[in-house]
């Protein structure tokens, strides 16, 4: 309640009821008889709209791609057509809001087809026709849900925030946990095993700090700072078996720039990796994951669980040598049955060869590709405008830029859908400050298509929304634990202290 934006109030109000209320009081586009458009003036160009959808590829189960017409107009007439279906809408504003039911039917009937949205606008008495916006409807469905944290793009501190799950075929959003339920608690580092809600974790800091883990139907809280680690564990990655979670332990600092639009940089002053055995409540590591001469971070297991990917850089004097800190993509073998980390580090992408730093490796569900972010230096891409997404073909051993996904601002924090055809990533491309969730299609060969901004019910949403979408992750089944359950576990005890096992 302490944040004013429409969607933020929505977050707290249990889906259906609030949505019904808002639906009841909102204006909706209505299907009307077609006006006489035969004399419409043809501009010969695309209409200026936000968000832009021309040329994007969308899943057939995505929510309506509502948009607003950016030039001045009094009325809009919109024709949406594909080879199999057609619908017309009339709006007496500059906002195009489709009926969810019509849209779902339409898109479902238009799989593997191009859809054309022809926008007619009217200011005075004459209609103007624009070239149609064209997008392609993929036959591949997208995961049901998107999970993210919403937080203001601050500098050092934070205030209100929350973790939410959003239905991707509609605009329904459900609260996982927020500052209303747990005031003064910072929450992030959410992570799921294989895009499913049966094994997940959420890291809490400050008030009632600790790590909440849900595994085998059991919700527990643990303390991850041990005598053998210099901080709490973060940036998690579940092992596909659900028995382990790999973490990095980081000591992060930030620097703030006096000029330019890049307001800050985050630096790892220290970084090691540890693996948590969920059943035994025990951490272990090896010299290859926590070398005193190197910084290791951002773990990720292969889908078969046999390799652990991470990024690593030789240690240096910081912040003076920050621009020399370039991370390579590495991997080690992992024996899940014995819980043994291999000794041979395979450098997959050498930062020295690449001339850049790599970060946030994410292996595709089929194990063929690793998507990662490259940046000039460091391993926290969130502030680096040059941060771009690349894909590494593990078979061809080839790194390719995902040009269709990239912009001249930050792209990072990407996550694969469970079928490996959709990727959600964060980007500051809209204004350089707010991180938005963008969704893009990747085909079997790892080739990307133009991405689209996470659709919102109100096309004005992004104009006034003051929060970033942080660490978006696909989820294929709903998160059923209520915020109160998490809060109960978080607040009733300090949590079990995780042990550190030295024999590895």
């Amino acid at each position, binding site marked *: *309640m*302490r*944040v*004013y*934006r*429409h969607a933020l*109030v929505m977050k*707290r*109000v*249990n889906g259906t*009821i*609030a949505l019904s*209320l*808002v639906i009841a*009081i909102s204006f909706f586009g209505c299907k009307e008889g077609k006006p006489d458009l035969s004399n419409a003036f043809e501009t010969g160009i695309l209409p200026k709209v936000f968000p832009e959808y021309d040329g994007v590829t969308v899943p057939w189960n995505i929510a309506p791609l509502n948009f607003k017409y950016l030039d001045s107009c009094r009325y809009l007439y919109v024709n949406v057509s594909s080879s199999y279906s057609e619908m017309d809408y009339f709006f007496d504003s500059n906002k195009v809001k489709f009926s969810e039911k019509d849209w779902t039917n339409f898109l479902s009937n238009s799989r593997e087809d191009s859809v054309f949205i022809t926008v007619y606008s009217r200011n005075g008495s004459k209609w103007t026709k624009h070239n149609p916006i064209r997008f392609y409807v993929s036959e591949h469905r997208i995961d049901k849900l998107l999970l993210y944290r919403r937080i*203001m*793009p*601050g*500098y*050092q*501190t*934070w*205030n*209100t925030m929350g973790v939410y799950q959003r239905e991707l075929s509609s605009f329904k959003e459900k*609260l996982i946990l*927020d*500052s*209303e*339920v*747990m*005031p*003064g608690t910072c929450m992030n580092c959410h992570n799921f095993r294989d895009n499913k809600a049966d094994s997940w974790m959420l890291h809490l800091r400050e008030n009632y700090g600790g790590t909440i883990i849900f595994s085998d139907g059991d919700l527990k809280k643990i303390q991850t700072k041990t005598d053998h680690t210099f901080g709490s564990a973060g940036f998690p990655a579940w092992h596909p078996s659900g028995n382990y979670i790999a973490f990095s332990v980081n000591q992060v600092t930030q*620097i*703030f*720039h*006096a*000029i*330019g*639009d890049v*307001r800050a940089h985050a630096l790892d002053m220290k970084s090691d990796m540890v693996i948590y055995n969920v059943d035994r409540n025990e951490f272990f590591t090896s010299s290859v994951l926590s070398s005193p001469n190197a910084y290791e971070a951002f773990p990720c297991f292969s889908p078969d669980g046999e390799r652990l990917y991470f990024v690593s850089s030789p240690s240096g004097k910081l*912040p003076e040598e920050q621009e020399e800190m370039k991370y390579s993509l590495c991997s080690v073998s992992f024996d899940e049955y014995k819980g043994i980390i291999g000794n041979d580090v395979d450098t997959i992408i050498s930062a020295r060869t690449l001339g850049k730093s790599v970060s946030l490796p994410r292996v595709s569900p089929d194990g063929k590709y690793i998507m990662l972010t490259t940046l000039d230096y460091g391993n926290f891409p969130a502030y680096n405008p040059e941060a771009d997404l690349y894909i590494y073909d593990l078979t061809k051993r080839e790194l390719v830029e995902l040009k269709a996904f990239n912009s001249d601002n930050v792209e990072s924090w990407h996550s694969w859908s469970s079928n490996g055809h959709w990727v959600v990533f964060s980007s500051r491309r*809209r*204004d*350089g*400050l707010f991180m938005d969730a963008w969704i893009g299609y990747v085909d079997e060969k790892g080739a990307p298509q133009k991405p689209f901004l996470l659709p919102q019910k109100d096309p004005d949403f992004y*104009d*006034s929304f*003051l929060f970033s979408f942080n660490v978006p992750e696909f989820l294929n089944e709903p998160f059923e634990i*209520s*915020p*109160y359950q998490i*809060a109960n576990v978080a607040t009733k005890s300090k949590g079990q202290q995780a042990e550190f096992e030295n024999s590895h």
Partner: protein
Amino acid sequence: MTKMGVYFYKVQIFVVAGLFIITTGLLFGIFHIEQLVYREQLQLFQDNNFLEKLIVPGGLSIFAGEFFLQFFKLHIGALFVTVFFVTIIIIFLFRIFSFVTNKNTAIFFSLLPAAGYALLLLDRFFYFSGLVAFLLSIIGIDIYIREKRGWRKFILGLLLVVFTYWFAGGAVFTFSFSVFLLEIVSADSRSSFRGKLFFGVSYIVLSFLLPALLRNILFYENVLQSFVSEAFYRIPVFLPVELILALLSVPLLIFIAAFFESANISFPQRMVYFLSLFMIILFGGIFYCLNNTNEERIRKLDNLVFNKKWNEIAIHARKQGVPDSKEASVAVNLSLAKEGRLTTDFFKIQGLQPVFVIPYERKGMTPFMASEPYYYLGLNNFARMMAMETLESTVDAKLPVRAVKRISETFLISGNDKLAQKYLGLLSETMFYSTWSKRHLSQIRGNESKTEFLSQELNEIRSRLPDEDFYYNEKHFEVALLYLLRANKHNRMAYEYLMMHYLLNKNFDSFINFLSIYSLFKYEETPLIFQEAKAYIQTLTSDDVPLLDVVNISKNVEEKFNMYISEFRKGGNKRPERMKDLFGDTYWYYLHFGRNDS
């Protein structure tokens, strides 16, 4: 009662109520007005969120509270709105207590909760919307007691519980406990005691049940907030005793009044009159004791900085000194630097600390004051950083209007129209900032060139931006000042701060070195502290220092310095008190004895 008696009774009520209201006005107007004005800057009113507010408990009160809080931007508005609400509360309380007890004592009982709520406003964490919520609950009681018939009254009572909870949050307990007691003590012979008890208990049960139920089906909140709502207190995990007492004061007083009434305890009219007057005096005394005078002085400076009343700040500081607060010293130093008087007046102001910038501190609006010097100096990124940190530092996560305006300004200065629009959009919904923001919005949308539509102030700040990058480090503020001067050699504020920094750190080499650009700043008079510094430096060296030639020492300074030397030689170094009396406002005293802070 005779006709004359009725007349006197009415006069008495008007006198007592009028005195209380005037006292309230005077107390807030004299002792707390700057803190009231400061409230406006702590949260932003956005009228487009009316429906969003309505879908949460206490929402209507929050909306109305924010709406009325807008008027707090003006001193007169703050005072009028506060007194107006206190007056309305008294009127409705009087109507309720007149129902319970004889009208003779009703006014006395009415003043107590009103005084309690007025005192709650002294707590900066208590929301003005709490006053609105309380008013709504007593209006509810007033509606309820005027309904006479049985089941209809019961249904009305239940509906009022629901509405009061939804519109006024925790004030529902004021309503339900009050009507419970009113039912119990009512002399209505048409209903049985058991029936009345059933009514009353039902209201209380419903007022507890409702939040407990709704928090599981309609919204997610921590337990306390579910019951109390966010209309009352900024800290969502804390419920102060004073607030509990205020919420329960009406039912408590109803109980006492009814007890007196049923026990036939009555007080002479004159006694009630004097008791009421005593209560008003007591209220004044408590108000005075609870009011934080130091905070009031700090907020005055804060408000003056926000309104850019630089000269007024300097005059105020010279007259009254500077309260012991880093924020206050930053404000006064900024005003002096803005006016080009820092290097003249710094030692003349009592209590002024050598604090030019303050580090980020997660404490309410403190980061905002930290942003002020950066902003005016031209350190736009750091000013924005502090303004954005202010959004994150307010304990209730409400958007402070000052910070939102500052963020818009910094984006306008850096030419980031997209982001400027976003924050200007928030301000365009307000009453007092909409003209300013809408003008900028229309100019941005009309693609006018920045220099055309930016105010002179924003254009000036733009001209001061550094052109080389460096990192934020408030411990080495002088580094930022050097970058600023390198980018714009006419940045007099930066020069004032830098020279003062060198002098305070007794870094004479750098001071002398930067006298090389002194002439660029076209000082009308040579800064007094420069003169005092030169007089002192000349005693340290027999060499000719040509750069010092630009500083002309006036006859007064020369004579005073000779006196200082003479006193010092006469053992002044062992008598700092005497030296302070004679030379406490000079640079020489600072050099030998440190800052004169007393």
